[in-house]
Structures are given as C-alpha cells and as structure tokens.
C-alpha cells in the first residue's frame, strides 16, 4: 500500500504545507511541538479539513479539494491511535477491540479478538475496563482496537508520550514487531529524537509546517539538510565559514569560530571558493586529547584547543562544553573516557574535529 498527500492549511499565525509519498514502511514524522505533526495526521484521517490538498491511498483519492472528493472519516480505512488512546471507558477490553469489527459473525469476532489479545499480550484482561489497566496495557488495547478494524494505513500520534521510560522501551520494540506482522503503511509522530531514530526507517523532519528533510534515518542524523534539522537531531555544533578552496578530497573552510577546518568532500553540489557554508559535527563524534599526554609529532589536522567550562553527567555519558577562542563546542563522551583522561571543568584540552565527521549543510 502507499499513501501520498499534499496538504495546505492556514491559521492566523501558522501555515502548514506538507507533501509526502510513503510506501509500506514505517515513517516517522519528527519535529518540535507545534510544528504541525498531529495536524497533518488529522487532515489525512479527515478529522481536520485542509484548506486545499489531495490525499491518496493506493492511488485512490480519499480527499481532493479541487475534485471535491471528501470520503467520510468512517470510510477512509485509516487507523488512528490517539496520544491518550481514547479508549471507550464504558466498554471492556474485548468490546473496545471488537468495536470496529463489522460484517462478520459472532464466532469470527471472538476469534479475531482472541488473536489480537494474544499478539498484544493482553490475554486475561478481556473483561477489564480501561480504568482498570496500566498505561502500557491501555496503549496496547488501543492499538489492538485500531488493527482489528483492518485499516489500510496506520497513523500513530505520539503513542509513547504518556508512558514511563521502561514501558516505553518495551512497547517500542513491540511496535516494530507488530509492524512486521501487519506491514501497513504507518506514520508515527514524535518529538523524541531517540524514538524517531529507533523506529523510523525513514524520517520526515517537519518544522513550522514545512518538511525540511525526508530521508533515511542515517541521512537525517549524520547528513542534515538544513540548520534546523541539524539542531533537531542534536547536532548542536553548527558553524558558518567561507570555502577557501578544495584540496584533493578535502574542502578547506575558513571559520571565524574555529579557524581553518578541513572537511571531507562528499558527493554534493559544487562548492565555489568564497562561498558561505554552514557545517556541523555531532557532539559524540569528537575525541578529546589531553595536551600533557599524546600529541607527539606535529600538529594534527582540525585540532581545536579550549577550556572545559561545564561537565554534566547524563547517566551513561557526560556532556561537556569546551570554550575555544571563538566558539562553544558541545562534546558527549562515554564515562570511561572522562575518567581515564581525568577530564573536569577548568581543564584545558584539545579536540579533534575529524574531517570525515564534519558535514557541510547543503
């Protein structure tokens, strides 16, 4: 199955204009709150009406403002998981799940509900009411209810945001398994980077109503298309500079903040000398060198020196900020490295901005 849509909607201060074509994969719609992610799902499902646009499932239009096509919500075949699940509080788990099953006899309903209870690890809970379930169970009932109706596409609106960390981890893994079993074209909305990376084979980064990048997760993560995307995927180290020239495989950039930096040249549009460029490097891709240790034989390429001005433990890693002569660099290091190098606030160290880790934002 495939889903394609092109939607426009204007509010007073906000305008949304998205255009995507998706296949049988799980696509993550990622972006900050207020970017228009949920609104996009609502317009695909028919809960919200676009000012103009087209929505097609398998090449068949379910909405077209120009051709006056507007299939009613109930006939669109869109499965929708609400952020807080919207379980029917007056119905048991079994009744909730079977709510969208129609046109089959009682025995068939029972079998289908039993099957879904099994897949969703909900056996034994069929007689309970939603108020008697944990958050994770509620989410699974909601997903089972949505899948039971046999949707052609599946829209998941921040499905994990109401859950605590451990449950979330487990349910993300569950969702991937379920997606394998029911390979329906799926869109998952999230503002959580880790979740986007874990679940989305393909990620659409949306900001202020526009898609800024639509690509595989590695691309979005390491090769952001815009400064905003770089920011959203946690690449805080974004700098500007001017291309001084291309030497061999390297692009030489003169940056006010960092001095002369060499970046590996990738397959991209030609860079002209004198052109202004933005480039970024991920905080966890930066090795630290103590000046009193190492550093034998010549000054390495892209060495930047500075003083550590803050150190924050994040559990498995440490976040440090390095103040150089012209910039503040964010560095994320595994705890053992911090321990081995005895890094602490106030220390002067050098860091290597490896040329293959530097990404020039096109």
């Amino acid at each position: 199955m495939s889903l394609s849509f092109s939607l426009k909607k204007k509010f007073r201060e906000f305008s949304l204009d998205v255009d995507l074509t998706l296949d049988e994969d799980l696509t993550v719609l990622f972006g900050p709150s207020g970017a228009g992610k949920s609104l996009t799902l609502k317009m695909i499902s028919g809960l919200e009406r676009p000012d103009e646009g087209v929505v097609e499932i398998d090449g068949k239009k379910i909405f077209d403002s120009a051709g006056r096509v507007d299939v009613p919500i109930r006939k669109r075949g869109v499965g929708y998981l609400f952020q807080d699940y919207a379980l029917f509080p007056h119905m048991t788990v079994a009744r909730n799940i079977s709510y969208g099953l129609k046109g089959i006899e009682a025995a068939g309903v029972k079998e289908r509900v039993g099957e879904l209870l099994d897949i969703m690890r909900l056996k034994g809970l069929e007689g309970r009411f939603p108020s008697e379930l944990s958050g994770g169970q509620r989410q699974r009932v909601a997903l089972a209810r949505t899948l039971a109706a046999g949707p052609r596409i599946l829209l998941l609106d921040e499905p994990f945001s109401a859950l605590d960390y451990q449950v979330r981890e487990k349910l993300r893994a569950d969702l991937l398994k379920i997606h394998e079993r029911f390979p329906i074209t799926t869109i998952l909305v999230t503002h959580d980077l880790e979740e986007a990376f874990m679940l989305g084979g393909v990620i659409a980064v949306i900001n202020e109503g526009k898609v800024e990048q639509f690509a595989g997760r590695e691309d979005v993560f390491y090769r952001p298309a815009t400064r905003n995307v770089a920011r959203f995927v946690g690449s805080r180290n974004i700098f500007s500079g001017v291309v001084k020239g291309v030497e061999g495989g390297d692009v030489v950039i003169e940056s006010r903040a960092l001095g002369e930096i060499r970046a590996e040249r990738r397959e991209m549009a030609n860079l002209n000398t004198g052109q202004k460029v933005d480039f970024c490097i991920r905080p966890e891709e930066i090795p630290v060198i103590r000046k009193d240790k190492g550093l034998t034989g010549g000054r390495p390429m892209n060495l930047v020196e500075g003083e550590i001005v803050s150190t924050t433990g994040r559990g498995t890693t440490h976040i440090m900020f390095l103040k150089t002569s012209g910039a503040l660099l964010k560095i994320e290091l595994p705890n053992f490295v911090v321990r081995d190098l005895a890094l602490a606030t106030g220390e002067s160290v050098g860091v290597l901005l490896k040329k293959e880790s530097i990404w020039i934002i096109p």
Partner: protein
Amino acid sequence: MNLFPLYLTIKVSFTATLITAALGMVLALVLAKKDFFGKNALDVLIMQPLVIPPTVLGYYLLVAFGRSSFLGRFIEDVFGVQLVFTWKGAVVAAFISSLPLFVKPARAAIEEVSGELEDAARLLGRTELGVLWTITLPLAWRGIAAGAVMAFARATGEFGATLMVAGNIPGLTRTLPIAIYDAVQMGDDFTANMLVLIVTLFSFSVLYVVSLFTRGKF
C-alpha cells in the same frame, strides 16, 4: 380526603416529562453539537422559565393558546384539542417550565463526552447515528437521567402558570399545589398538612435520587 389532585398531578407530570425528555433531548443535542445563527437566542428562550415569573409565563401561554388566538384555534380545529382550562393545558405549562431543567444538565452531559472518543468511533467505521447511540448517549446518560428526574419534580410543583392556563376546576384541573393553596384558603388544615407532607417527602426523594445519579451509584 380527595386524592384526585394527587392522581392528576402524577398524570400531568408524567405526560409533561415524556414530552420534555423527547423534545429536550433533541434541543440538548443540537445545542451541544451544532453551531448556528441564533443559538444563543434559542438557549435564552429555553432558559426563560427559570427566571420569568410563572404567572407571566402562564399569561403568555393563555394568550398564545387561548380560544381567541390563532394558535389556539388552529390546534382546536386541526387536532380537536382544547388546551386552555383542561388538564392538557396543565401539561403544556408543566412542559414549558420543566424544559430548562432537563436541557441544561443533558446538554452539559453531552458536551462533557470527549470529542476524541466520538472521533475514535468514527475512525473505526461508525456512522454519526452509531456514534451517538454507542458512545455519546451511554456516556451522557447519567446527566440526562438526572435532568429527567429534575424535570419531573419541577412539573409536579408547577403552580403559577398552571393556574393561569388550566385554572382551578375541582376534579378537572386542580393539581396538588393548587389543592394545597385551596385547602389553606378554606381553612382545611388536615388536607393541607397531608398534601404538604406528600409533596415534601417526594421532593426529598427526588433530590436524593438525583444525587445518586450524579455520584454514579447507578
């Protein structure tokens, strides 16, 4: 002691409550779900009996449905029903006065049902009628039932408008509240006390039942 007023009051109130619930349900749904020109005006009109003096309301009804009015003659010619100075007139008075007491809580209960639940039902393939029947009404029924009980209670206590429209004809239109007034006027303390006792007990039980609904005991 003549128990006709008690019987008449129950008959009038029951009939009035049926009409109130049927028409009030439609009004509550429309007010809760639809946006249209004049919605506020309609709301104000329905709520009028809560604040307008019952005698004024009765006067309006008398003028509107009297035998000399167009509406009154129309109803009499077409349906063969005379409203003024009959028990049916008392029903109309009770219906109009009790309508706001039903519509207000019923509308609030319907509005309280989360739109997301109704959307979820639509997304699962249900028609608007199906959504109303399986989601909205089952979740709002407490408020609707409480409204119906309040409307019934209001109908049993209707005095001013009923007196204006239906009059005080013994054995024909003399309802319980009017009979109490009459008994006191006549100095018939025994009848007055007995009827007052009945009404008081009834009023207490009504509020108790309503509280059971709103606390979710049913």
